[in-house]
């Protein structure tokens, strides 16, 4: 009975939101029919936007690269189906602001024809660098929602010693079941992707980690992993935010990533199961990332589903396929309800990081008007990062951003546990996002000021140099003139006549 006293906690804090996965966890993945238009943004990842390399009117095949990655942190974009490029223009991005982003609009021709049929490769014979290169060419990013280009994280094995590769199948957000279904239906492909990644990283141990609310997926994995060395699937207690990289590492290895470092610095790398599947497609099958699995759910959706969706499909098409909405959703989200982003409207496309499209009713949201903080400390107890959200928020409210930073604002992972438990319904996460934005602006402004200072100094130096040169020139001229004058005077003493000519010449 007292066992709860002795149970080692996976990580401090955390919350237990109702998981609400029952609506879709039993539904197999369905393929969404091709829509009439696909809106493929060039920026679907963290880092620099990709550069479009197709023109309006150009025909493209499925899997053809339509935008190339630019810079060290970027990812290529491929045509999700065969068809014609009808425009390359700004369209609303899947982002709370709804601001436009450069988008390649494709009209499918209905054939869905692949670019070519490459030979499947013996992926485990490839050098790690080649694997990373293949993954980069396929435009694979972190599929759990973070969308960090996956190739960069697969290359870390060359510079760091990686002892543990953790495959994150926790899917700790409520409603979402796309990873669950993926692991259950495409178990072998996922495991193959995991093995390719392990090979690329040279990791000694590999763990596929699931929360204990997905017993079927765990069983499926364990069946296929039977007798595989150093590769096992384990379950961890269901607790949000288990899926956060920092907390997953803490939960399965007991280690913590030091502040300001990466998982690779302590020898652990975390990849999502969806990424493993995409890596399998990219390296084994030589197919780029052109579609993904999306959970359509939430109380406002008529028939929730797990769908395989071509990237660039607008959210409204998904909702329509699921029978539309029962009622006007109070909030339309991309991603889960804890860390997902609110969408301004349904005319935004599904991108590489879209793991769910959730239409919530007001009752599911259950957020009232905020009341003043009563300092109950629940946010402190819930914070998985060991911060004091109430102190940070009160400082941000009185515009003391540095004070908030001193309380550890930059260590916040914005998981939302604090807002979730706050009895006063204070939007703590938004306070933190706001403050992080203000601080980022300040850093940006500071950087600009430094640059401008440099420019101003250069200008002053130049002006001074110019003035000096001028002064010197003037002095020289003057000296010359004097010299001439003296010479003339000397001459004039001898021969006073030609003085007039000289004066003219000088003028």
């Amino acid at each position: 009975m007292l066992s709860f006293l002795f149970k080692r906690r996976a990580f401090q804090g955390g919350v237990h939101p109702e998981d609400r996965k029952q609506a879709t966890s039993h539904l197999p993945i369905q393929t969404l029919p091709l829509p009439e238009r696909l809106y493929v943004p060039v920026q679907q990842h963290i880092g620099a936007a990709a550069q479009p390399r197709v023109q309006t009117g150009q025909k493209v095949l499925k899997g053809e690269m339509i935008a190339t990655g630019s810079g060290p942190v970027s990812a290529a974009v491929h045509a999700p189906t065969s068809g014609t490029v009808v425009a390359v223009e700004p369209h609303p991005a899947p982002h709370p602001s709804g601001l436009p982003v450069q988008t390649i609009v494709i009209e499918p021709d209905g054939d869905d024809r692949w670019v070519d049929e490459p030979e499947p490769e013996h992926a485990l014979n490839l050098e790690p660098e080649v694997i990373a290169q293949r993954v980069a060419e396929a435009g694979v990013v972190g599929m759990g929602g973070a969308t960090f280009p996956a190739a960069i994280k697969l290359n870390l094995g060359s510079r760091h010693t990686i002892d543990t590769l953790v495959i994150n199948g926790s899917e700790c957000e409520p409603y979402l079941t796309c990873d669950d279904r993926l692991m259950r239906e495409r178990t072998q492909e996922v495991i193959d992707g995991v093995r390719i990644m392990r090979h690329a990283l040279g990791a000694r141990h590999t763990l596929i980690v699931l929360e204990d609310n997905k017993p079927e997926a765990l069983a499926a994995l364990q069946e296929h992993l039977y007798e595989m060395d150093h590769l096992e699937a384990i379950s961890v207690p269901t607790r949000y935010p288990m899926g956060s990289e920092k907390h997953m590492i803490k939960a399965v290895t007991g280690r913590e990533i030091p502040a300001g470092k990466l998982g690779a610095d302590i020898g652990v790398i975390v990849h999502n199961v969806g990424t493993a599947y995409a890596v399998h497609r990219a390296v084994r099958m030589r197919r780029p990332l052109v579609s993904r699995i999306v959970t359509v759910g939430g109380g406002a959706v008529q028939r929730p589903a797990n769908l395989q969706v071509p990237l660039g499909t607008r959210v409204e098409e998904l909702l329509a396929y699921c029978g539309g909405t029962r009622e006007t959703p109070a909030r339309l989200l991309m991603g889960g309800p804890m860390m997902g982003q609110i969408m301004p409207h349904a005319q935004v496309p599904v991108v590489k990081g879209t793991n769910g499209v959730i239409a919530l009713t007001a009752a599911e949201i259950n957020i009232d008007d905020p009341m003043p903080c009563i300092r109950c400390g629940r946010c402190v107890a819930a914070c998985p990062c060991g911060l004091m959200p109430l102190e940070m928020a009160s400082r941000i409210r009185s515009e003391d951003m540095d004070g908030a930073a001193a309380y550890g604002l930059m260590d916040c992972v914005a998981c939302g546990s604090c807002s979730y438990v706050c009895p006063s319904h204070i939007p703590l996460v938004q306070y933190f996002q706001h403050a992080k934005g203000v601080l980022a602006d300040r850093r940006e402004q500071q950087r600009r000021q430094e640059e401008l200072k440099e420019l101003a100094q250069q200008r002053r130096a130049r002006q001074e140099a110019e003035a000096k040169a001028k002064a010197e020139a003037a002095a020289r001229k003057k000296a010359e003139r004097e010299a001439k004058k003296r010479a003339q005077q000397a001459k004039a003493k001898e021969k006073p006549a030609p003085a007039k000519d000289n004066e003219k010449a000088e003028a």
Partner: protein
Amino acid sequence: MYAAIVVLTAMGLLLGYSLGMAAKYLKVEKDPLVDEIEDMLPGTNCGQCGLPGCSSAAQALAAHEAPVTLCPPGGKALAQQLADKLSVSVDLSGMEEEAPAFARIKEDQCNGCTRCYKVCATDAIMGANRQIHTVFTEACNGCGKCVEVCPTNGLVLVPETPTLRTWRWSKPEAR
């Protein structure tokens, strides 16, 4: 009576002497504050504070003769830094964070007089005599000096257009 006079005089002399000695041994160099403050200021000598340049602004600040909010290009961030440096408390909530703005030349109105080019503290305007000038937004600090000198009103300050990269979450309404 005499005792009192003697005692007080002796005390005064003794204490005065020992303090004098202490001051000699515990001497400190000049306050490096002015230089430190000057380093914090933008250094563009734009003159928006109403003082001749950043170094005179730094002197005024160090002497507590100017408010820490004097520098518009530095914005709220600089004001806060200065307040901390000078350990004065200041209410910055009224100070609006101005959206960064850039000068833009209306090309049809530019007559190529080069006046803007000459006043720009950061060489953000390029162009030669009798040619239409252009502004490098990267180097522009939005001080607006060029706008003032333009004879044809051909320069305007335009605010930065928000993009996904510059978009920020707003502060929640508190009750």
